[in-house]
């Protein structure tokens, strides 16, 4: 198993090394060289060898490597196969782009005279990663499914209290998400200043506004009262759901690993709708004829205890 895990991460690392070696040993290149080709296939953008090497290495070792490392957190083999496969495809793609760039520029007097990009070149670049992805995905399947950890509801917290008078509320914002969004906002603020004149309104609308909206929405809210359960995201509780106790078949407290559901935010996977703003404790509400609801929220053990009282699983005795 260790050999397989080593192979998974070696592919993007070796790929990055190969890209650097190709750049170091390349000869007879114009400076600057052609680094971008337009829709007609002709070169239409230039840059330095150093910059494109860094970009290719970032794609391969950075993005590809991140995908492989992310696969380590996947709770099931299928998800792991997909991520490792994607990461290894990215490695092939990065090497392919770099190879083509160097080959197209070899012997050209200037970047404008670099060879055009043909359809066959593009196909090769895209397909180069396919065998790597297939092998990587096959290797990555050799892992056990990690079963979710469940916690006990805190039934003692609501013992003795009449169920008609019990109300439980929680609003949880993921801290890591807030930090990431602040970083994204800061990056976008820098873009504001370096963008060409006139682009600022576009940056505001297309870049900063989604960041602000994401910040607003990455809060999970749950209320449990005599009228039922209400869950939702953000101040408008959308997306969300209102659930009557008669619809609920079971409630549990799960230590949620967001990658089990494909990531953070509002997740739709077969049989489940999830609101995930962080990893950690959350409510798992199973329903008779509807998808299970999973929501990461603080003090979920008390929330589950209140729901169990309403379901009649426990009483006020």
């Amino acid at each position, binding site marked *: 198993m260790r050999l397989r895990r080593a192979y998974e991460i070696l592919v993007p690392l070796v790929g990055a090394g190969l890209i650097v070696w190709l750049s170091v040993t390349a000869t007879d290149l114009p400076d600057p060289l052609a680094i971008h080709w337009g829709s007609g296939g002709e070169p239409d953008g230039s840059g330095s060898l150093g910059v494109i090497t860094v970009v290719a290495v970032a794609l391969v070792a950075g993005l590809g490597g991140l995908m492989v490392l992310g696969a380590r957190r996947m709770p099931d083999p299928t998800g792991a196969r997909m991520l490792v496969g994607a990461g290894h495809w990215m490695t092939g793609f990065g090497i392919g782009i770099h190879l083509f760039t160097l080959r197209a520029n070899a012997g050209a007097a200037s970047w404008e005279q670099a060879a055009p990009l043909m359809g066959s070149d593009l196909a090769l670049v895209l397909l180069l990663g396919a065998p790597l992805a297939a092998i990587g995905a096959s290797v990555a399947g050799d892992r056990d499914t990690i079963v979710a950890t469940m916690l006990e509801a805190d039934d003692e917290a609501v013992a003795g209290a009449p169920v008609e*008078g019990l*109300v439980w509320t*929680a*609003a949880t914002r993921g801290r890591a998400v807030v930090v990431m969004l602040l970083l994204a906002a800061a990056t976008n603020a820098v873009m504001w200043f370096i963008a060409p004149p006139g682009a600022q309104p576009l940056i505001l609308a297309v870049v900063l506004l989604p960041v602000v909206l994401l910040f607003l929405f990455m809060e999970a*809210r749950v*209320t449990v*009262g005599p*009228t039922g359960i209400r869950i939702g995201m953000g101040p408008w509780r959308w997306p969300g759901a209102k659930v009557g106790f008669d619809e609920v078949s079971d409630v549990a407290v799960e230590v949620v690993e967001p990658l089990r559901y494909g990531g953070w935010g509002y997740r739709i996977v077969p049989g489940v709708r999830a609101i995930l703003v962080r990893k950690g404790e959350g409510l798992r509400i199973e329903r008779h004829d509807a998808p299970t609801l999973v929501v990461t929220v603080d*003090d979920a053990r008390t929330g589950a205890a209140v729901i169990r009282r309403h379901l009649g699983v426990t009483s006020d005795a």
Partner: protein
Amino acid sequence: MLLRLDPASDDPLHVRIAAAVRRAIADGEVSAGDKLPPARELAAALDVNVNTVLRGYRDLRDEGLIELRRGRGATVREATVDRARLTSIADELVREAARLGVSTEELIQLVEERS
């Protein structure tokens, strides 16, 4: 936050809501600086008018236990926990006295003898 309202009480709902919040503060469920659930949310959970909840929150504000700010909601004030605990104990004392048939005057006399 867990709130325990007393469904058997004859008190108006806004009084029971205020008592439940007071008890939550006294029990340490809620700390200074914590936000109370938005009135709209609590009203929906209890299936009551939002003004009923707001009335309860205003009572708590008048007691100095919480701050109410338009657009920012209700926040538990600093250094109110002990006071809330005391008020919660007083609520229980009054309830127990009523259960035992002790009049308000007798109860006041009991407290004065011990002060």
